[in-house]
């Protein structure tokens, strides 16, 4: 089977130009609408601020919005309810479901387009099945969103009041957009079978585009509120808000979070539908059913990996911007009390890469032609595990005095630099490259290239990877051992560029090499061990847990501030908890989420079952 990426690349030229132009026009109109809405938010902010600044009767002071100074008594409490944990869990559950329901339409849109291009109905059916799962999750997202809103109003009324005064208009538009999102989603889902073929299919695809545009705008709005709490903007030096909502929304960390969440959502959505396919595969009794869900699981894993590869770069960009916004916040994040959290993160990301690769390696068993590549798998595994161990190496060790003396200081002369960024960047880039290599082997597993220059092509691939990895290692070692702290991160950009160039060039080269390739053995969908399905499940669980953990740190680096440096958190829970405590809350949330998700999967299975009930109904 040709990979999705190849299909995506091949997608464009075959399409009639006017049809793309039509979609483009709709996209432009939509963008104008969104920008118009943003402009309205800005203009509206000024109008509303006018009202807010009119002198109050009996007072000459204008009512600019000042952050309240609270005491513990200002936070209502409910007996037996921990306010922070409640809001934490509800927000996180809402976010998990929201990430899923925002991501699914993105790749459903792409898969539907691929189906249209190839006229292969399997893609259309798969896209429909994906969106069907997200429908139940959509109502859960809305319910949890409502619960979050009420939790904030009841448990943190002053914080909610402050934020709603700063962001009032955008919250109103958010609610309106939610209606638009629902309308687009229901039309897209329920109209799927109706809008088939010819112009109707184009109309349906355009609906998918509208759905994605509205969904992404919703996320951007909510990101503005969240990032304002981290890097507030639009305030004067005394922390007073003068009414420019756009400035508050367009704060320092808004775009880094927008980018990071957009990519992460796709990877996460892929992992969850992968878990769905795995669940259905395990429950399937008929061979054709197993083949269908095997194919679906493969595609979902492909989507997850495709988005997972650039994710560390987006994360790095976000962290760099946090440093640029506030070095103090950056050091608290990476070198202060949260530093050990990144060792937990290393375990989770190692799990993600290993399970995604393991699934690919198991999948090579679908074709007998893959035996040619089996001997290389162990080297891929060694490289990925080696990289994981470097990422896993902490910078600061917890040592006794004797150990400290024996080591000659807090850091080992040669192993110490493995704990800092140049080594971590090198490790993650190598891990990404070897994952790309796994994918390349998988693509080749059932085919033999027939072009005349196949030897030269393979030699070029080998040279490309060798030179690229040598460059990564050189940059990592040079900056890790031979530069001072301030310049240690300088390797990151050239390393990222090296990795991206290798991936793009090698996949392009391979696509050309394998054009018209001969099939040596068929690809038997469904011929994959059950343990591969558990690898897909592990991917979803690790992703969910990781999102919960990183959500905690994103929020936690504000420490005892509701809005960093502006609005202090005076609640009894204003302290930063230990990482163990945070991990337990994240675990509790993950259990709840996975239980709900598996329930959704089960529901989708039940909905297609029919129980014969002869004798129950009256005969007519």
């Amino acid at each position: 089977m040709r990979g999705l990426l190849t299909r995506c690349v091949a997608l464009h030229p075959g399409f009639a130009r006017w049809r793309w132009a039509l979609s483009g026009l709709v996209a432009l109109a939509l963008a104008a609408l969104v920008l118009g809405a943003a402009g309205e938010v800005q203009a509206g902010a000024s109008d509303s601020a006018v009202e807010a600044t009119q002198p109050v009767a009996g007072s000459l002071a204008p009512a600019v919005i000042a952050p309240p100074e609270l005491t513990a008594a200002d936070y209502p409490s409910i007996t037996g309810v921990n306010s922070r944990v409640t809001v934490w869990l509800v927000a996180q559950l809402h976010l998990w479901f929201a990430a899923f329901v925002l991501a699914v339409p993105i790749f459903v849109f792409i898969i539907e387009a691929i189906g249209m291009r190839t006229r292969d109905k399997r893609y259309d059916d798969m896209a429909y099945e994906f969106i069907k799962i997200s429908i139940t999750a959509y109502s859960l997202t809305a319910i949890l969103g409502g619960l979050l809103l009420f939790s904030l109003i009841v448990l943190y009324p002053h914080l909610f009041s402050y934020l709603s005064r700063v962001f009032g208009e955008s919250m109103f538009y958010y609610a309106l957009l939610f209606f638009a999102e629902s309308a687009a989603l229901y039309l897209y889902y329920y109209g799927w079978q109706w809008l088939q073929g010819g112009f109707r299919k184009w109309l349906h695809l355009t609906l998918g585009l509208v759905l994605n545009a509205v969904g992404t705008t919703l996320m951007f709005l909510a990101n503005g509120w969240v990032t304002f709490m981290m890097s507030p903007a639009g305030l004067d030096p005394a922390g007073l808000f003068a009414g420019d909502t756009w400035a508050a929304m367009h704060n320092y960390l808004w775009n880094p979070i927008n980018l990071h969440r957009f990519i992460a959502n796709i990877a996460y959505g892929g992992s969850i539908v992968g878990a769905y396919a795995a669940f259905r595969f395990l429950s399937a009794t008929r061979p054709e059913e197993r083949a269908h869900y095997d194919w679906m699981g493969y595609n979902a894993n492909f989507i997850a990996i495709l988005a997972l590869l650039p994710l560390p770069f987006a994360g790095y960009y976000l962290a760099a911007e946090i440093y640029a916004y506030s070095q103090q916040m950056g050091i608290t994040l990476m070198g202060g009390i949260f530093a050990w959290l990144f060792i937990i993160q290393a375990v989770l990301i190692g799990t993600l890469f290993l399970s995604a690769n393991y699934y690919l390696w198991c999948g090579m068993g679908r074709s007998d032609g893959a035996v040619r590549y089996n001997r290389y798998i162990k080297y891929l595994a060694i490289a990925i595990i080696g990289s994981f161990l470097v990422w896993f190496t902490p910078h600061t060790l917890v040592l006794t005095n004797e150990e400290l003396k024996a080591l000659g200081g807090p850091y080992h002369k040669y192993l110490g630099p493995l704990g800092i960024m140049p080594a971590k960047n090198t490790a993650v880039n190598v891990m990404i490259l070897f994952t790309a290599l796994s994918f390349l082997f998988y693509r080749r597993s059932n085919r033999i290239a027939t072009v005349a220059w196949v030897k030269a092509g393979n030699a070029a691939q080998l040279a490309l990877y060798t030179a690229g990895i040598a460059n990564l290692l050189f940059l990592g070692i040079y900056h890790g051992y031979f530069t001072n702290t301030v310049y240690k991160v300088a390797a990151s950009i050239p390393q990222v560029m090296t990795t991206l160039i290798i991936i793009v060039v090698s996949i392009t080269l391979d696509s050309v090499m394998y054009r018209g390739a001969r099939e040596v053995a068929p690809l038997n969908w469904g011929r994959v061990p059950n343990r591969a399905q558990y690898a897909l499940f592990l991917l979803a669980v690790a992703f969910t847990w990781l999102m919960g953990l990183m959500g905690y740190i994103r929020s936690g680096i504000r420490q005892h501030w509701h809005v960093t440096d502006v609005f202090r958190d005076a609640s009894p829970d204003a302290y930063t908890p230990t990482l163990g405590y945070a991990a337990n809350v994240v675990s509790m949330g993950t259990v709840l989420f996975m239980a709900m998700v598996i329930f959704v999967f089960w529901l989708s299975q039940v909905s297609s079952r029919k129980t014969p009930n002869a004798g129950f109904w009256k005969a007519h």
Partner: protein
Amino acid sequence: MKHFFKVLVFSLLMIGFFAGFSNFGIPEIKPAPPPVQEQLDLDAITPERFIALGEKLFNGKGTCTLCHNAVGGRAPLLDQTAAIAADRLVEARYQGSAGDAQGYLVESLLEPSAYVVAGFGKAGSADTISPMPSVTGGSIGLSEVEISAVVAYLQDLAGLEVTVDIPNTAEAEASEPDTQAKAARVALASAEEVITRFACTTCHKLAGEGGELGPDLSHIGATRDAAYLRRAILDPAADIAAGYPPVMPPTYATEIYAGELELLVQHLAALQ
């Protein structure tokens, strides 16, 4: 149903592993509680206790050791800074206005970019801008008394005689910034007052009088609507008038009250 439970147990085991590693696989560090405002009896404080207070602030509330430590190398060590402060005042890279070593130390806490130690400036600033925030702002928020205590500690750390005067309670109270004063500024009642306060005519002509650095606003309402004018004041970089340099400060958005802004915008829009 069998697979339902198998998958559930597998998921629980994995979640348990991640939770177990987080609880037992890494050191459990209990973060310090949020800083609290300490009540000081300045009238009874001794120089030793004042220096000890400075040390406590240096290692705690001031968050100085987050960067100024021997491990990370993100900022210079400060153990001898007080001793070499006087030498820095005559260096070419010094951009401040302190008259003596003690003044330099105070200035370095309030305006860290006045002197940036070579190799420790913000990336791309050629060591002219310090990444250090002012210690009076944001989450650090040191008071004048606390800054004096930190300076006393730095002098003591360098083995020098402490020259900082310990303020008494009355002086400390008098020096506390009135953070509400800004909030309580009485809103200006007319467009003319706004124009005077924000010195618009320094750069713009109004009724034929004023500077020429910016466009003539005498009849601006004839060509520009209120929305444009509002944006031009809040975000001057959004539209630069042809033939004029982009020198209008972007700070009005945080200085002008929204009511004042509307008075000004309506006034300008009416200038046909």
